[in-house]
């Protein structure tokens, strides 16, 4: 039972990470650096509870807001490059964050233990959850409440004018600018939001695992975070959500295959991109779904 709770917890975190990549991907920006915001959220929230004595929610808020602010800052230089260049640049950003935390030391002695980010040794003893007697399932409830809130926000975003602006920018920036969309504002806003979401994910992660170090936010996490929206498709945030849940569930349930799990993971990516290059739930799927819904509801067929 505990094992399933653990898997569900990880899925929740990865959903947030995937959604953060999704947010910028629907404006046409591919970011391999969201794990950087995740790390910022994690370290700062951990510092909040473990070193500054904040409660859980304020600390997570701090982590989230700082990550969002950094997202805002990253959004501007991101405007200068596109495509794979942006992917490389954002990966570079993620690595810079990781390397910064590798070199940071900010520790205090609390109750006889050395607490705080300690360079290569990482950041241990973020034990707020366990000190305050929260059970695993209660924390899982908190995580999924947050995920649900983010999902609701995304749902509203996708149906709003802003969501249409996001997709317009992805489709054709020049045309979007000509219709009066402030492309800069849209893209920077997307990065800010994505920073907030990933920061939230990181803040929740560090309290679950009580430990964070630089190795946890390196290339494998970057690849995973981009895989979820790419496989899930950019048609709807559900794609990312389901892809994250499915992939983690797959790798966990195939533990008996041991080393071959990752080979399967790789083959799955290749197969999906070959047969459905825009992901499983891509824009055409959403159009069809909306068409069905409208036909079902409208008394006038074809409208």
């Amino acid at each position, binding site marked *: 039972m505990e094992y399933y709770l653990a898997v569900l917890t990880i899925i929740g975190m990865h959903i947030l990470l995937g959604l953060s990549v999704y947010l910028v991907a629907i404006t046409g920006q*591919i970011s391999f650096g969201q794990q950087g915001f995740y790390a910022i959220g994690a370290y700062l929230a951990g510092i909040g509870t473990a070193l500054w004595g904040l409660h859980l929610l304020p600390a997570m808020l701090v982590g989230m807001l700082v990550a969002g602010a950094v997202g805002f800052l990253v959004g501007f*230089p991101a405007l*200068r*490059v*596109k*495509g*794979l*260049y942006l*992917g*490389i*640049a954002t*990966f*570079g*950003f993620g*690595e*810079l964050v990781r*390397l*910064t935390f*590798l*070199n940071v030391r900010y520790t205090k002695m609390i109750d006889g233990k050395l607490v705080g980010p300690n360079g290569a040794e990482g950041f241990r003893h973020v034990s707020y959850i366990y000190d305050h007697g929260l059970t695993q399932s209660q924390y899982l409830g908190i995580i999924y409440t947050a995920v649900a809130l983010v999902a609701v926000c995304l749902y509203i975003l996708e149906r709003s004018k802003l969501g249409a602006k996001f997709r317009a920018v992805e489709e054709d920036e020049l045309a979007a600018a000509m219709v009066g969309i402030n492309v800069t504002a849209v893209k920077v806003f997307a990065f800010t939001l994505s920073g907030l979401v990933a920061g939230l994910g990181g803040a929740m992660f560090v309290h679950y695992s009580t430990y964070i170090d630089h190795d946890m936010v390196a*290339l494998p996490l970057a*690849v995973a975070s*981009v*895989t979820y929206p*790419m*496989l899930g498709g950019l048609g709807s945030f559900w794609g990312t959500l389901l892809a994250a849940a499915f992939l983690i569930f797959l790798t966990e349930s195939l533990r008996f295959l041991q*080393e*071959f799990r*990752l*080979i399967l*993971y*790789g*083959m*799955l*990516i*290749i197969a999906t*991109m*070959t047969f459905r*290059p*825009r992901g499983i739930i891509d824009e055409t799927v959403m159009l069809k779904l909306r068409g069905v819904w409208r036909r079902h509801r409208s008394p006038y067929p074809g409208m």
Partner: protein
Amino acid sequence: MAETLIDVIQQLINGLMYGAFYALIGLGFTLFFGVMKKFNLAYGPTIMVGIYLGLIPLYVWEAPIWTVFIACVAGAVAVGFVVEFACFRFLRQGHELAPLMTTIGMLILLQEAVVIVTHALPYEYPAVFGDESWELGPFLIRPDYVAMLLTGVILVVVLYVVVNRTRFGRAMRAVAENPTVARLLGVSVNRMNTLTFALTSALGGATGFFVAISLGALQPGIASWMTIKGLVVIVIGGLGSIPGAILAGLLLGVVELQALWFLGIGYRDIFAYVLLFAFLVLRPAGLLGKAAT
């Protein structure tokens, strides 16, 4: 003061030689993008598997070192064909970043395959050029780095000749400029793609051989490391520019080794990425690139 100057020059020499390796990786990426207009993130793993395959003659038949070199190149080319078949052949249309994901998938797959086959144990590459450095006045020069630089120069010259002075090269450039017109002129674009794969993989295999020799101990992780460095090089050098990739590789090598010497290993990679960002912010087209993507 003189001590510091000697250190700076020593690291400059090392950096230029080490940078030759980065330049060659970047060259592979650039060639690839130039002709196929797509990114092959499986290039690093291709080289890595080639290097591992090169060990087969050594460990199984105790063959001389030049067979290892041939095996590296042949292995890399073979893997290149597999990558082409799995990742690119069926992706005609679709999202232009779909090959990005398929090659990432291939990267994961190849890296894991090597981990499985080698049981995650590091394998040793023979130190062909010995363990001693040559002395040139106050400077120490590593012979394996020199070999890398020399090989790099030879490969670049060979590449230049092939690309600019042969029919094959002309066809390659035609496809790079305008595939439709190239097709009209009788060039088989599919064949050119496959041959480009073979050429860049062979280049990679040759590079990989010298990398393996200077590293000494092999691990599957070098695939990701090479890929990342290669990508940084093409961004700094400018996409699609061969001389840009070479210059950028040398620059990266110098910056990294200076940072490594004076600031320690924690800061080496930081400086590489700072360099990357400096270029992206100040000069997105890279050193000699045409335009940002």
